[in-house]
């Protein structure tokens, strides 16, 4: 049986989300919010590469993030997202964006596992992007 593969739209959609600007407001401490200002989706990180793996092709996406002298490689396997890998679905239960489900889910998981960490606080150079339940299953094997 061959490897599962991602659809062609996921990398461009995911790149568009990751490189987008968000609008942020902050509490002043008195319950009021500051006026909106633009901040990068990537926070303190930079995206230096996002593409299919040169050896495995569309069965794996590799993203390279750098920040504060750190370099972290995010690895995303199509087999971990079997039901969404085509990046053609829009589930109204949890996705109300202009993007397909897989791109939205991956952007959320990358934020969970990489972007909301300070670069200095990440202890590994390579991170497999997976759903929380799958992360725990893999860890349980060891």
């Amino acid at each position: 049986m061959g490897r599962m593969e991602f659809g062609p739209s996921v990398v461009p959609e995911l790149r568009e989300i990751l490189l987008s600007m968000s609008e942020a407001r902050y509490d002043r401490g008195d319950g009021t919010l500051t006026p909106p200002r633009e901040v990068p989706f990537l926070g303190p990180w930079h995206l230096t590469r996002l593409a299919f793996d040169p050896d495995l092709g569309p069965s794996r996406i590799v993203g390279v993030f750098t920040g504060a002298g750190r370099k972290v490689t995010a690895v995303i396997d199509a087999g971990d997202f079997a039901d969404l890998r085509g990046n053609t679905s829009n589930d109204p239960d949890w996705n109300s964006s202009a993007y397909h489900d897989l791109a939205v889910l991956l952007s959320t998981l990358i934020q969970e596992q990489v972007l909301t960490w300070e670069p200095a606080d990440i202890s590994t150079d390579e991170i497999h992007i997976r759903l929380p339940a799958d992360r725990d299953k893999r860890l349980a094997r060891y």
Partner: protein
Amino acid sequence: MRNLRRAMTAGILAALLATGTAAGAGATRFPARPAQSDITPALRSWYVASSPGIPAAAPGCGKGVLVRKVVAKYKAKKYQGGGYRTDILYCGNAKYGYRHLLGHIKHYFGGWSNFSFSIAQTLKKPAGFVAQKNGNFLESAPILQCFYAGYYIIWTFFVVPRIKTGDIVTAYGREGKRVNQSCP
């Protein structure tokens, strides 16, 4: 495991502290700190202690329970226009809701009760409030884990609700620095 041990050996008192110039400085480091000119003093008045020993309602998202079963409703500050909205946590599935964030609860302190408390505090008074192109807010606030031994740890807690509906996609905490003095 480390957090569980802490929870068992030290009295836990969760607290919310606003970001800013007092003890919360540096706690909310993502996405970017507000400029000093945006912050007013008197931040210690933000401190809200939890009620240890009062458990949150059981989620009840066992096998066979529908994805749209409501687990909890939270009072959430509106991004624009002032006032509050209601954000809902559904049982969901591996991609959103309680079943998604279940994997994050074990990496936080104090179990589901404290996790739910932290969601509530973050939504009620987010220190950082980001509207993102993927259709989700990213809201964050500092949560203090206080120890009777006379120190506390500043966590940054994140909640990700959908912009359009307020349904909670995910939530998780990040352990930050330890401060060697009693909780403020």
